[in-house]
């Protein structure tokens, strides 16, 4: 139920810059996911929104109020921690009503909020238990319930699922998605390093890298139209393949000359001026397919992984990382063979100096 606006947010510890010049508008009802490699500052940014870390530069507004120097409790936020951070000596009910008691709410009001949240999260039978008598998933739900009862302007989630096992993680992810649907007015910020969580939950994803924002966009935007090589390789698994090449034909479609007589045609438009431009051609492993015509890539299969629904093929790479292709179904006997691969023109990305030619 609140907008959130970051203008030039920066964070430094002494001389060490952790984040700089973060500009981001978050609108009411959005679920924004911060993703990025370890140490990119995504949790720090979240904790700055929460008020647990000081903001060393820029301005943070919640509902057009600058909250830089307002203590956490008065910002109207609620946070769910990775470790749940339940109070171990209090029952589930006391855990959930702690904030309301501190806010001196009436007993009826507290009871109503707690039982409502408990109902949403199916915790009604556990209200009088201590956290140690709950399973991991239940503890996580208590942590979420504790933030729901406060009816905050902004929900903050700091890697809430990373302490759960794989099956429970999927179930809880779906619960969070349903919870978000049941509260369409609430604004949420969610930090994760798990791509699947980011892709499934986010209204928009913010990719953080190199102390700043690499790209902001809907999950499919990031997948289909990455702004730079970092986002292209960060989103999607396995990562996008990149080959160096040279532009040899321009226009509505662009033709790129690659090593070993290979070439690729892309739907990314270019102009006369781009003739001879050195670019990196990017194709996702799942977009590569075998061809008899002029290939975009030719290589000898180093080894294969049979995953059932797909077969992942790793090619010899004289320098750098393996080139990877994903073929549907189970394909036997590819090892040691030389394969010619190409991709549809609309699946071929072009990057110059790390930036996508789409966004010039």
């Amino acid at each position, binding site marked *: 139920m609140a907008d959130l606006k970051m203008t030039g947010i920066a964070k430094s510890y002494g001389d060490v810059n952790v984040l700089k010049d973060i500009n981001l508008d978050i609108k009411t009802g959005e679920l924004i996911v911060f993703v990025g490699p370890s140490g990119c500052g995504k949790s720090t940014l979240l904790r700055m929104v929460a008020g647990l870390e000081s903001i060393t530069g820029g301005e943070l507004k919640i509902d057009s109020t600058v909250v830089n120097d307002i203590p956490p409790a008065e910002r109207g936020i609620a946070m769910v*921690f990775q470790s749940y951070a339940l109070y171990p000596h209090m029952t589930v009910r006391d855990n959930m009503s702690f904030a309301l008691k501190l806010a001196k709410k009436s007993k009826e009001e507290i009871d109503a909020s707690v039982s409502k949240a408990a109902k949403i999260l199916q915790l009604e039978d556990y209200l009088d238990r201590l956290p140690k008598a709950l399973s991991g998933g239940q503890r996580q739900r208590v942590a979420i319930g504790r933030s729901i009862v406060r009816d905050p302007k902004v929900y903050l989630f700091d890697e809430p699922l990373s302490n759960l096992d794989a099956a429970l993680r999927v179930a809880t992810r779906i619960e969070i998605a349903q919870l978000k649907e049941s509260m369409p007015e609430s604004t949420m910020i969610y930090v994760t390093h798990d791509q699947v969580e980011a892709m499934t939950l986010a209204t928009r994803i913010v990719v953080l890298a190199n102390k700043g924002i690499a790209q902001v966009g809907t999950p499919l935007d990031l997948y289909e139209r990455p702004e730079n090589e970092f986002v292209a390789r960060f989103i999607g698994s396995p990562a996008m393949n990149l080959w160096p090449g040279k532009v040899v034909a321009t226009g509505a479609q662009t033709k790129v000359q690659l090593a070993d007589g290979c070439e690729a045609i892309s739907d990314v438009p270019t102009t006369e001026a781009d003739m001879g431009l050195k670019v990196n051609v990017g194709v996702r492993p799942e977009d590569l397919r075998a061809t008899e015509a002029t290939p975009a890539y030719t290589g000898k299969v180093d080894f294969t992984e049979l995953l059932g629904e797909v077969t992942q093929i790793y090619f010899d790479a004289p320098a750098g990382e393996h080139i990877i292709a994903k073929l549907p179904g189970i394909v036997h006997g590819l090892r040691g063979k030389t394969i010619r691969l190409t991709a549809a023109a609309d699946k071929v990305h072009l990057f110059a100096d790390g930036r996508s030619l789409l966004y010039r």
Partner: protein
Amino acid sequence: MHIAGQKSSLSWAVHISVLALVALWLFPTVGLLVSSFRTSDQIATSGWWKAMFPSQQNLTLRSDAPELQVQEGDVFVIEGMLFAEGKNAEISVWGVSSRAIDSFVAGDSAPLKKGGTVTVQANGQYRMENTEPFSGTRGTRIFVTATTPPEFTLRNYQNVLFDPENAEGMAKAFINTLTVTIPATIIPIVIAAFAAYALAWMEFPGRALLIAVIVGLLVVPLQLALIPLLKLHNEVGIGKGYLGAWLAHTGFGLPLAIYLLRNYMVGLPRDIIENARVDGATEFQIFIKIILPLSFPALASFAIFQFLWTWNDLLVALVFLIDSTGDTTVMTKQIVELLGTRGGNWEILATSAFVSIAVPLMVFFAMQKYLVRGLLAGSVK
């Protein structure tokens, strides 16, 4: 190599050490306890480990006084029991002179120095006969060697604890020790809990230095501070009372208290405290509602330590609780004095000593769970 589930080859050494330690601790304690229920005669003739068996004792008993004699025909007779009623002792040999205490066996008759004879039966019954009337005011001494059954008495405790006439009793000293110990335990814990929270979780300049100073103070022997501190107390005017002793114990206990509690509190999960902060708790509310309940094991373990060593303390009491009236004598000091005045009365010493260790024992057994938990603080999630 140690494989889980397998016994280490050194486990027998561990078991033997544990057994040795238990024995080392148990023997004196049980000995003290048993001795405190025995009479001085029993203590003098046999060790406490024989308390459960009949013991052979040399006793000096006295017949009834001559004024109880009766005339039967032309002989004067004194008849009675040598032992108190209900005592099932059995006499083997006896005598009427301290130089020959085993001249006669039970049932024999012996001539008396002043004339007449005495007959002593095995159960202690005696009969003195004389043709002349018995003279004098006191009965005749009879030396017996008797086998007495095991006997336990509460008289020592009655004497030491409940006899208002006994100026050397432990009752007053017991109360005095409690008066010193309880505030001397509570005051440092309260102060240390606040200090430890601040040192663990509040940012302020000089915090690291303060922690270093506290660690440094841990190794300062308290003897260093005795005289200057006493001088200070005398100048302030609290040199001769409980207040001085409480403050001294507080001061000497604080470095360890702060150090222990701070180390425990700093290990509490940061997330919980931050969550409380987001929930709107002030620092004081975080301290009272989150930190204190979660630190209970550490608080309890330090409380036990502090209680035990203020209870057993003699040095601080001697220096800071100077009493000429004897109204504030603590138990440790009382026992020292008893050693001087009643050094031979083992039954009094054993009982007094056991009175003084009874409370530490109870505290230890009641709270040992927290003691162990507090010592292992942080190692188990």
